[in-house]
């Protein structure tokens, strides 16, 4: 009962903040409501006792990605007059959600298809399981991601110091 209550609170939070995120006019409001949405998702992970997902959600999404987004918003200092003119915003939003609906339907189907019966015993030690899987079967893609990060580091630094002519 209590967990249901918590879930309902978190889900309502998530829905409202997601809606505010796409409908608000000021960029910083969008970013902050995105933060609330991400934290609500983290809360839902926590109620499912999925500790690994909870931690990654907080650290990566709410922590790293969102601070990057806010940093860029502050860095660019976007004024109202710089925003694109969107006369048919509501209509476009409804049309987009209609387009995205089938994809969401597919996702919901697969969620229903998945086997959640032994979820709890699987997830109690999920960090260990994830770690073992990552460092055994998927050690090669995992290590290749370090190369990927090195490339983006080298590439972005080279581009940033590129001299301009022409």
């Amino acid at each position, binding site marked *: 009962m209590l967990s249901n209550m918590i879930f309902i609170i978190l889900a309502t939070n998530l829905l409202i903040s997601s809606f505010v995120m796409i409908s608000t006019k000021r960029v910083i409001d969008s970013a902050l409501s995105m933060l609330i949405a991400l934290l609500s998702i983290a809360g839902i992970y926590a109620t499912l006792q999925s500790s690994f997902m909870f931690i990654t959600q907080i650290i990566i999404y709410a922590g790293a990605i969102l601070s990057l987004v806010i940093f860029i918003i502050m860095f660019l200092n976007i004024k109202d007059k710089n925003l694109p003119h969107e006369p048919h915003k509501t209509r476009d939003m409804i049309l987009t959600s209609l387009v995205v609906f089938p994809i969401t339907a*597919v996702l919901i189907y*697969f969620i229903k298809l998945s086997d959640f019966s032994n979820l709890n015993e699987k997830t109690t030690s999920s960090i260990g399981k994830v770690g073992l899987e990552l460092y*055994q079967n998927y050690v*090669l893609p995992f290590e290749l991601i370090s190369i990927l990060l090195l490339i983006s580091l080298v590439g972005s630094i080279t581009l940033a110091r590129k*001299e301009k*002519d022409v």
Partner: protein
Amino acid sequence: MLEPVNIAFESLNFATLAPMLIAIVGALTILVVDLAKGGLNKSLYVMISLLFLILDFGALTDFAGMFKENGTMLGFFDVMMMDGLAILSQLIIVGASMLFIPLALTSKRFHEFSYPEFFSLFMFMIAGFQFMVATDNLILIFVGLETASLALYTLIALHNRNKSFEAAVKYFTMGALAAGFYAFGSMIFYALSGSVELNQIKDVFEADGYANIGYILVGVVFLLASFAFKLSMVPFHTWTPDVYEGSSAALAGYMSIVPKIAAFVVTMRIFEFLIHSGVVWLEVVLYAGVVITMTAANIWALVQTDVKRMLAYSSISHAGFVMAAIMIGTTQANTALFLYWILFTFTNLGAFTMLWVSRQKKLPAGQSSDHSFDKFSGMVKTMPVAALMMGLFMLSLAGLPPFGLFWGKVYMIASAVSAGYTVLAFIMALNSAIAGYYYIKVIVYMFMKEPTNENNYMINASLSLKTIIGIAAFATIFAVFAVSPLMEFISVLVYNSGF
């Protein structure tokens, strides 16, 4: 408390990683050399890259020999898979890279080559493509693809033109969308089969007789869209001419060959078993895609005023032509695909290098693009040899006997006929005829028109660029002698990997 993990070192089969590790070590070496002493000449970096690529190529030929004896090699918990397709496509990737990297030694000074990071990123990109083809694990394919693409975006952006930046951003945005499609499609396959290994996915699908066919098709749509972006199939081709125009001619030529062969191999792995599953829908979609890509790209190429844009559309059309092999799906067609692509590599290398030697640092006055048709007018009077070379590559691209690409087209059309696709074979032949028009247009400009006032065509030429053109011309003219041993080599590798 977790159990300690014990894995025998031999079971990892570390050797399967050797070719990629050579490329990665090469990339790191370049970074370290720059760290130790900056401001070295670019020829050193070209030579280091070339050295590691030769090592890489040698390792791969060794693998080809081992494959003929022992069959497919698996490594790293079956994530790595060195089968015939992987070895063959890596040979093409590394071989083409070896031919393209000396194009950095131009006589004009271009900005991007003064950065050692350019060569380092180039080597990383090759390693990424190698990982992408040498696996049937959807996750490693994804990571390899992203590794290679990120490096490629940066390489494009390093070229010093405003248009290059635009091209890189366009390519990046499109690539990100394609990556999203790929992830969604793979997710559906994983959800349906519980595995990310393509051969296990195939087993699961066949075991339940394609029961979830509707959802499989949703997954196929997303994967198809993602690879259609990479292969620049119509209607996902719109980025191609802009990106080719914005990047340097050398890199544009490279992009028309190496990323595409990697994408072809992955497409072959994913779609071949799905086509044989007897799902008619996929065949129809691919059939339509192949025909539209070939024909529409040819028609757009007719109206271009810039030779580089024309070649961009021509490469789209060639990609459509080759995609037909994946739709046909017989061993003969798959063999023809690799033969076609090897011959196409040499011809396109020559054509794009001919554009590269004519590159000025600044745009010529009164011209909006680097390689307009006017630039080539009357070339035979001022530069007879260069005009002859350019004509040779154009004729080969048009598929005139006895030049290289003719044999590729013959084998491709023959495989279509013998698999019963007579109409498709007819359309392919018809398209070769349409394509003839715009290739001959360049020749008409070169041989029939009067030269324009100032002709500085070979402005960017250097000994190494001329050598590369010589190699490409040699390979294009004498391809006829190499076709049958090549076919034998390719068919052994392709057939024994089950394609």
